């Protein structure tokens, strides 16, 4: 195991991407993630990779698409409004089945919004802002170490599914420092190894023994498009089996169960301890994969003791619909939330939880 180091979140994410084998980075500055393009500009060239500062996020995602279509292992990052601009590319990447790793260091919205921690990009991430029938696996870590581990793993998932994979963090995680262990670096795939490593990629006919390859998403005949989308969804069905990740805390005999991901899940953990001190047993389901959403985790709730499920979010309540699908009418589902970049205190969560429990008795 490597030694513990102290790094700013954004720099640790960039380093994790490089160590995960991402050799190409295309980006555009936007707070609170500008340390990532800065780090990439310093580090990638030294280590045999390539950094390009694109003229916009729109260009960046399309550069990523071209580079990955030509077999490059690509990492891109931005923050909420920049990710919105990238949605055109997300749709194309999914249809053309081109793997890319995307990091959203999210902020509050809508519009320009603010740069403090927010989770109002849940719909954007899990429902897709791009056009058409597609899904993107989305992983939401609760801290820098988990983010580093997921970013490191993401290229393998992207390559296996030939689909973009998103890691969703927030500005606070990007800016803060926590001691962490970096994984061992995987070697970059050299240019001359690409044709063998990704036989579907664009490497020129000569490199593939005279067979040409077209990376495309245009299918004008409805029957062909339907068949193509159905094939994509066979892949997504497999992802729904393989990629579901979550953590549970204290579900057994719980009075109340929280569902929370990312930054707010850390506050909820603190609230659970405070509630325990007052004799209230609270548990938590922490989704790590937001798509596929861990609906199965809701079967672990003790429906004989639990009186309510609370979706705790840093948005106006975007995940709560998924929580209700998981609960499936078995219990009342309530929302505790703040938005705009405000993170509730653990005490605030405790007080609101007690009020909710009063109401459902």
């Amino acid at each position, binding site marked *: 195991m490597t030694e*513990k180091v*102290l790094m700013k979140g954004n720099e640790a994410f960039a380093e994790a991407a490089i160590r995960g084998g991402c050799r190409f980075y295309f980006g555009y500055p936007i*707070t*609170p993630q500008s340390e990532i393009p800065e780090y990439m500009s310093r580090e990638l060239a030294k280590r045999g990779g390539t950094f390009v500062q694109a003229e916009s996020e729109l260009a960046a995602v399309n550069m990523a698409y071209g580079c990955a279509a030509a077999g490059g292992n690509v990492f891109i990052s931005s923050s909420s409004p920049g990710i919105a601009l990238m949605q055109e590319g997300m749709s194309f990447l999914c249809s053309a089945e081109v793997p890319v790793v995307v990091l959203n260091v999210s902020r509050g919205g809508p519009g320009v919004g603010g*740069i*403090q921690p927010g989770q109002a990009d849940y719909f954007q991430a899990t429902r897709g802002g791009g056009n058409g029938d597609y899904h993107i696996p989305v992983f939401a870590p609760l801290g820098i170490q988990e983010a580093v581990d997921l970013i490191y793993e993401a290229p393998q998932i992207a390559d296996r599914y030939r689909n973009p994979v998103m890691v969703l963090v927030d*500005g*606070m995680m990007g*800016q*803060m*420092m*926590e*001691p962490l262990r970096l994984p061992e670096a995987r070697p970059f795939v050299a240019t001359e190894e690409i044709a063998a490593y990704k036989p579907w990629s664009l490497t020129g006919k000569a490199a593939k023994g005279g067979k040409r390859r077209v990376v495309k998403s245009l299918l004008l005949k409805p029957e062909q498009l339907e068949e193509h989308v159905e094939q994509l969804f066979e892949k997504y069905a497999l992802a729904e089996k393989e990629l579901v990740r979550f953590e549970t805390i204290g579900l057994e005999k719980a009075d109340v169960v929280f569902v929370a991901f990312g*930054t707010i899940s*850390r*506050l909820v*953990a*603190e609230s659970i301890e405070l509630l325990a001190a007052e004799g209230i047993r609270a548990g938590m389901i922490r989704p790590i994969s937001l798509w596929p959403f861990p609906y199965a985790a809701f079967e672990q709730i003790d429906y004989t003791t639990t009186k309510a499920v609370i979706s705790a979010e840093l948005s106006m309540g975007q995940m709560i619909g998924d929580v209700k699908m998981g609960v499936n009418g078995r219990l009342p589902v309530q929302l505790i939330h703040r938005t705009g970049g405000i*993170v509730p*205190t*653990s*005490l605030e969560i405790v007080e609101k939880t007690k009020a909710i429990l009063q109401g459902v008795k």
Partner: protein
Amino acid sequence: MATHKLFIAGSGGQGILLMGQILTYGAMHEDLEASFLPSYGPEMRGGTANCTVVVSDKPISCPLIYEADALVAMNLPSMLRFEPLLKRGGKLFLNTTLIEERPKRSDIEVIDVAANQIAMELGNAKAANIVMLGALIRETGVLQPKSIEYVLENKVFHGKKASLLPLNLQAFHAWQR
């Protein structure tokens, strides 16, 4: 050991973020859990700087704090703005060289540290943050002084900056109650 929540505030150029990082490295040196959260965004262009450091012997639930066990105010605006953040009975470290006013609250413990003056007497006003760090460590006991000494020597004042180490070690031990 309990969880210590520390908040450090001042103006840009006072080495505020460095103080936070030194504390975080110090915690790592003692195999403790730690988190460091600097202020970010437009605020950092406005000349103010602050950061939150949490040190604990168990995983840290949240790097954000709403109640500080200790608050370091390196200039007057920081004291005025962040005084309410301190918990009842918490420790307020005042850089009295730059802050002549007294805090309003009476339910806190105030520790006067003439950080700039002490640093100037040692020959470098820039070491005011390290003087303050010495006071913070001594009065809170959050970390052992030798851990900070280790960080100063191995993470901060090494390589090209090694010549600054003796003065800063002196600064670290300079403040007396």
